[in-house]
């Protein structure tokens, strides 16, 4: 490279570091995901854990819980304490609007052209009439939100979830979604418009705002579950499956009509 080429002023070192980190993180995610592929248990039972790396995953979960209680949860509580519901709602709207270009890319990659059209319309309407996404005018006008990510795109290309993975900081995942997350980070059109501090601010606000939405739910879940890790693992799976079905109701489980008219007896429950 020639030194004489005109160059843009160098961004602060911290931002260079973060920009590099972003790409390294994507690579690390892909490497971890490949490990997961290698460990695939291929369980057929719908109730099987499919969690060959459970010991490691549980250790990472412990770590995440510690980080959450020290950093993320207090930040989320502060966010809820300082900002009224109305303001938080507007912030969520803005963040969602910033996510629309990536939704568009993934809708297109899945061949969901009608949803892609709706996404494009939403972005155009909410960015302008909705003042940068502060007001979700598009929903009122009948353009529904159609979120998609690259994990879902991979699923639509026939790549299943594979075994469960608990990622440090990022939380519950699997090889499909870990790769998806890495690709989304690099492919997000907004990532190229919002660089440096703006991009960092977006990531942090997004993390805190999402955590804030689940403050009560997660606390209730933790206090009422007998195995919080297993509950989170299962919740994540079903949550993702619902996103992949675009919100349609899940396949109904087979629940036999157990007969309880007699006294408890072994032969009732032969399946």
């Amino acid at each position, binding site marked *: 490279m020639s030194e004489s080429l005109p160059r843009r002023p160098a961004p602060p070192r911290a931002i260079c570091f973060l920009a590099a980190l972003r790409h390294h993180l994507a690579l690390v995610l892909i490497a971890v995901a490949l490990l997961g592929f290698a460990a695939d248990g291929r369980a057929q039972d719908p109730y099987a*854990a499919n969690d060959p790396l459970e010991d490691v995953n549980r250790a990472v979960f412990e770590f995440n819980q510690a980080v959450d209680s020290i950093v993320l949860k207090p930040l989320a509580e502060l966010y809820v304490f300082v900002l009224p519901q109305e303001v938080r709602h507007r912030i969520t709207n803005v963040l969602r609007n910033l996510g629309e270009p990536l939704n568009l890319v993934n809708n297109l990659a899945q061949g969901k052209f009608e949803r892609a059209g709706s996404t494009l*319309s939403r972005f155009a309407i909410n960015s302008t009439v909705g003042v940068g996404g502060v007001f979700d005018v598009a929903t009122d006008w009948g353009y529904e939100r159609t979120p998609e990510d690259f994990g879902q795109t991979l699923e639509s290309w026939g790549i299943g979830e594979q075994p469960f993975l608990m990622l440090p900081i990022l939380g519950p995942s699997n090889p499909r979604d870990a790769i998806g997350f890495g690709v989304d980070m690099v492919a997000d059109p907004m990532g190229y418009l919002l660089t440096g501090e703006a991009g960092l601010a977006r990531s942090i606000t997004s993390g805190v705002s999402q955590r804030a939405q689940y403050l009560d739910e997660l606390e209730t879940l933790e206090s009422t579950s007998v195995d919080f890790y297993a*509950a989170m693992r*299962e919740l994540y799976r079903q949550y993702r499956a619902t996103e992949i*079905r675009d*919100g349609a109701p899940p396949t*109904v489980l087979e629940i036999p009509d*157990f007969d*309880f008219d007699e006294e408890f007896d072994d032969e009732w429950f032969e*399946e």
Partner: protein
Amino acid sequence: MNILISRRIFAATVMGMAVLLAATGGLRAGTSDDPASTSADSALTFIQSLGDQAVEALRDNIESPFEEREAAFRKVMVSGFDIPIVGRFVLGRHWRTATKEQRREYMAIFVDFIVRVYASRFDSYGGELFTARSVIDDESGDKIVRAQIVRPSGGDPIGIDFRVRMRDEGYKVIDVTVEGISMLHTHRVEFASVINRKGIDGLLSDLRARAEAPIRNAAE
């Protein structure tokens, strides 16, 4: 550089689209939900009434400690749910390896546990508006009643599907799916995980500990 030019084109395209859409977008306003199917009225009414009773049980006792709200909620839940079927299903194949005493003990604790789980969850939504919206006939013969909870605090409404089965005594709920997450399925996997590590007696003592644990008062 090309990137700069393409960004300008991108921005211009977006602006152009926006103006067009802003001009025409109003025409698409007012897409409404389908009205509930009339053939499934009784299942819909059952769930609406059950939901109203549950909301009332929690709201009427809003000044009382959680234990009292839970007791009122328990009556509603025990009458509307087929708890034996739920409990048996959630234990899965481990039911067969359990002794008779373990089964009896499990069924007794499971009621307390499941009431605690649902009461705390609904309690945390707080003064909500509950609406049963539509019914799907499932090929299993059960009905899926799709309901929605709108929280006074704002935020997205919560979608809840109740799986309802006709029993001798009338309709009973056998599964609740919140935002696509089946409570039965989740509990089954969670219980299996505890049994694998601690055995059935381990599960029983964990369930008892959860059901009897003091709980923070969400209404305050």
